[in-house]
């Protein structure tokens, strides 16, 4: 998995609440058996009209947001389906960090498996970051995972919480399965004990 240490980049504002995974990547793009290439269809139904032309007022279509690496979004980002195609599309587009007041559970987990950092901050701080993001390419935010901080283009610093295990995996680019495989003897003995206790499973 790709590492995430620090990131300085353009942030795009998406103040809409409840941005769901159907908006992030509509189902017609789930019929792939690959993980790559989904960035072209990120936010497809908001970004393009039916003829495939760009919708000019959609934020990521505006000149100053073409190189967006950070999203600042409304509450409950990523609600809906478990499709990991959502973080795959976000990552493939070039976005490595999403900031919101809350995330849906499965989406939040999926981000970490793909080198994307989801950051939860209180409403007042997200409001400040939303304003900062509105400055477009004139403003760059900095995210520091080790120090757990977000710094606005004006130098204002906010700290965020992150689970220590998830943080380590992201900082070091660790592969979960490999890590769990190291505990295979614990799984073996649990399995033996569980199948003695509940043989019908």
């Amino acid at each position, binding site marked *: 998995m790709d590492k995430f240490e620090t990131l300085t980049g353009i942030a795009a504002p998406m103040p809409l609440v409840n941005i769901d995974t159907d908006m992030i990547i509509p189902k017609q793009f789930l019929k792939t058996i690959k993980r790559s290439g989904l960035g072209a269809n990120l936010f497809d*139904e908001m970004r393009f009209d039916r003829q495939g032309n760009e919708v000019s007022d959609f934020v990521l279509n505006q000149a100053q947001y073409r190189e967006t690496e950070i999203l600042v979004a409304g509450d409950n980002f990523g609600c809906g389906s478990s499709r990991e195609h959502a973080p795959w599309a976000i990552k493939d587009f070039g976005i490595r960090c999403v900031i919101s007041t809350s995330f849906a559970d499965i989406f939040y987990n999926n981000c970490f498996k793909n080198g994307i950092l989801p950051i939860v901050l209180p409403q007042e701080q997200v409001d400040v970051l939303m304003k900062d993001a509105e400055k477009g390419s004139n403003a760059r935010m900095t995210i520091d995972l080790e120090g757990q901080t977000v710094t606005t283009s004006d130098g204002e610093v906010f700290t965020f919480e992150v689970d220590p295990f998830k943080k380590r995996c992201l900082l070091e680019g660790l592969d979960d399965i490999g890590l769990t495989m190291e505990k295979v003897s614990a799984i073996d003995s649990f399995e033996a004990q569980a199948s003695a206790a509940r043989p019908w499973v």
Partner: protein
Amino acid sequence: MSPKTLYDKIWDAHLAHEAEDGTCLLYIDRHLVHEVTSPQAFEGLRMAGRKVRAPEKTIAVPDHNVPTTPGREDPKNMTEDSAIQVAALDKNAKDFGIHYYPVSDVRQGIVHIVGPEQGWTLPGMTVVCGDSHTATHGAFGALAHGIGTSEVEHVLATQTLIQKKSKNMKVEITGKLRPGVTAKDITLSVIGKTGTAGGTGYVIEYCGEAIRDLSMEGRMTVCNMAIEGGARAGLIAPDEKTFEYCKGRPHAPKGAQWEAALNWWKTLYSDDDAHWDMVVTIKGEDIAPVVTWGTSPEDVLPITAKVPSPDDFEGGKIGAAQRSLEYMGLTPGTPLSDIEIDTVFIGSCTNGRIEDLRAAAEILKGKKIKEGLRAMVVPGSGLVRLQAEEEGLADIFKEAGFEWRLAGCSMCLAMNPDQLSEGERCVSTSNRNFEGRQGYKGRTHLVSPGMAAAAAITGKLTDVREMM
């Protein structure tokens, strides 16, 4: 011993490893797999040279993008990309030796309907699937939740999931429901009250008299939408109804094993003085037949209400309501029961079980759908379809003017050919009314099966109580 919730008990019974930082490995008893969220996971296994650790606990069925019209066994009748995904599942099931119900098998259907039907889902189990509506299986008192594709790969390889424990929420529905009010109305009303993010970080246990009174089908409907409330999982403590439902299913235990299982299952309830991090109580008699007006499942109101105005909301919801109303083509102040519809969809893992079809058929018996309306019933599984045919329900639907389809997800997410066109307004028994969910610019109103049948007759959103 300190008192525990049902969630605590299942969690403790499946904790395979706990690291110093509190990161846990939860052992998974049943892993359900479908064609859309699994190909990349199997590919990952192959690339790393890994096997499926417990193929006997892994069950696969294609459901999301299979057509629901006859002749679908022939890949030529699927779009090319769908056929590739289904073929990939065929191959992966065979190569890795997991249980499989192909499209041609009468037992095929929506994964969350097939699991319980075949007795794969049992009380006290941990169940996962690369699908958010895995919450459905919580109706059996199983800890069941959706996972992403990387986690699917993790479970395939290790039969465990890396987890942090969630908080405990109790949702109690007290007393009796009024006539015409169903499990769907309960679950939508709970989301209306707590919001789609209200359950984030929690596992919900639904309890109270109104929940106990529900059949297993109804309980599955309630738990199915725990995810729309943001919760990791929904649970209902198993009881005699649960045991009765499980008994004799193909993969349920038999004989002495059944007795042993039963003994354990009977210990699966929340202790009286267990700790709850949040409690929500709703009186059963306060729940009305409801319908959604917007593009989030929390946008829910009794059918007797009027379309709200953005001014009725606060904060970020004002903009969201504005956008929803525009998308849905609705004017504030319009009575919901004046809204005319184009399409009716009865099906999905929320309401595609036999009891749902019975409820809809009961309303439709001897009646015709409104002229010009498109109406479709998609049974949740091949076995539900067969049973409905035996009970004469299929004839009622067909005579009323409904299309009678083969099992699958169909228009719940419109990945197969069953889709809404731009601006088409649909009354649906599924679980999501998101923008574009049932087709580009399609408009969805979520309701119970009875309400869907009533709307099919009048061509408008309709209070089912007027038809009873």
